[in-house]
């Protein structure tokens, strides 16, 4: 059984280390916060200007001055600090954030990432994604292995405009876990009942050393 989105988020939570400062992207990456090991001390950064992001508020706790990067209302914690946008991106671009887990449209075997625009379609903008992939210590991608048409999203070369070049360290898909290594992608782990043959059939990128 390939992983579903919650399985992928749970697997991505294994990328966390005690004491990490982490930035989670919008969508499936947000679910990772549901799987943080209880004995781990993890601080979530929200790039609109907050370190130590808490859960969604109760109806009574809602504060219009307290939102996350997805513009959702959130809460603060005892440890929380607030800061301006340039300070927020100084900690991102200065390499002070340990890990960012993001979604993607395409990833290449060289670790190139495309997740911000499709030519000819509505372009909404990259937000903080280009800064995150350029500055955060480790970049892990969560995405479906194939698009809706059944085509591989792990490619030899991205067809869409890039968010960053050679920036991805690890990819978690519904089929397994893949690392960007010299010469292509290396299979680190397969989802239950997924075979290497299935992965090879469904992956355009070069699979190496396995």
């Amino acid at each position, binding site marked *: 059984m390939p992983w579903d989105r919650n399985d992928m988020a749970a697997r991505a939570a294994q990328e966390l280390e005690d004491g990490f400062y982490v930035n989670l992207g919008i969508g499936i990456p947000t679910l990772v916060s549901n799987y943080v090991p209880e004995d781990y001390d993890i601080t979530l950064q*929200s*790039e*609109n*200007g*907050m370190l130590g992001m808490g*859960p*969604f*508020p*109760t*109806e*009574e706790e*809602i*504060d*219009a*001055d*307290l*939102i*996350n990067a*997805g*513009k*959702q*209302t*959130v809460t*603060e914690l005892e440890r929380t600090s*607030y*800061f*301006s*946008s*340039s300070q*927020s*991106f100084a900690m*991102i*671009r200065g390499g002070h954030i340990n890990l960012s887990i993001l979604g993607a449209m395409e990833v290449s075997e060289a670790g*190139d990432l495309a997740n911000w625009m499709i030519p000819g379609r*509505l*372009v*909404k*903008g*990259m*937000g*903080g*994604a*280009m*800064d995150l992939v*350029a*500055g955060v210590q480790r970049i892990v991608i969560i995405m479906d292995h194939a698009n809706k048409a059944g085509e591989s999203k792990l490619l030899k070369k991205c067809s869409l*405009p*890039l*968010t*960053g*070049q*050679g920036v991805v360290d690890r990819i978690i898909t519904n089929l397994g876990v893949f690392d960007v290594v010299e010469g292509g992608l290396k299979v680190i782990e397969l989802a239950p009942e997924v075979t290497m043959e299935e992965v090879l059939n469904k992956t355009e990128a070069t699979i190496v050393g396995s």
Partner: protein
Amino acid sequence: MKKVFSSADETLNGVLKDGMTIAAGGFGLCGIPENLIAAIKSSGVKELTIASNNAGVDDFGLGLLLQDRQVKKMISSYVGENDLFMQQYLAGELEIEFNPQGTLAERLRAGGAGIPGFYTATGVGTKIAEGKETKEFDGKTYVLERGLRADLAIVKAWKGDAQGNLTYRKTAMNFNPECATAGKITIAEVEEIVPVGALDKMQIHTPGVYVQRIFAASHEKRIEQRTTRAA
């Protein structure tokens, strides 16, 4: 010199000009100078270039300035919440310069600090770096981005005083401190003007030197994504 004014309209008196560049604080609808934006709409000024992380929504925030086509160009990182924006953009009536969010923040910070350009790894190898100078430092490639100054900066703070000292509240700070430094003229709208000396001198986020005009107003503070958990 008197910095305190009574309303958004009064602070904008003699400041607005067609074709000017305005830096506006806020992230989404959080911490936006909503009264100044509304006053700029009613002024009718046009051909504006606006540097702001987002473009508001159709009927609130900077979206208001699109209704009468007052904006020529936006410098933003994300404009996905605004349908009117998309219509005008696709019709070729509105120009957009996408800046990565951190690059936009740093451009404003640098501009305000008298730094005309800086190198960053953000955007290297992407469309953003096309046509821009790159340089290698310690084996890694960086792209040159320009500091950004604006004819006018409009910001929203929590509390301020007659000296123009400002403090912001929670994530409503966002781009406001950077915009405040980048304006040739900076106007702040605050929830409350307190007596000089009442703000904690060690907790002032924007020192008064950056702020030329200030007024107090009420704020709707509209919420874009109201997300809750069970009590």
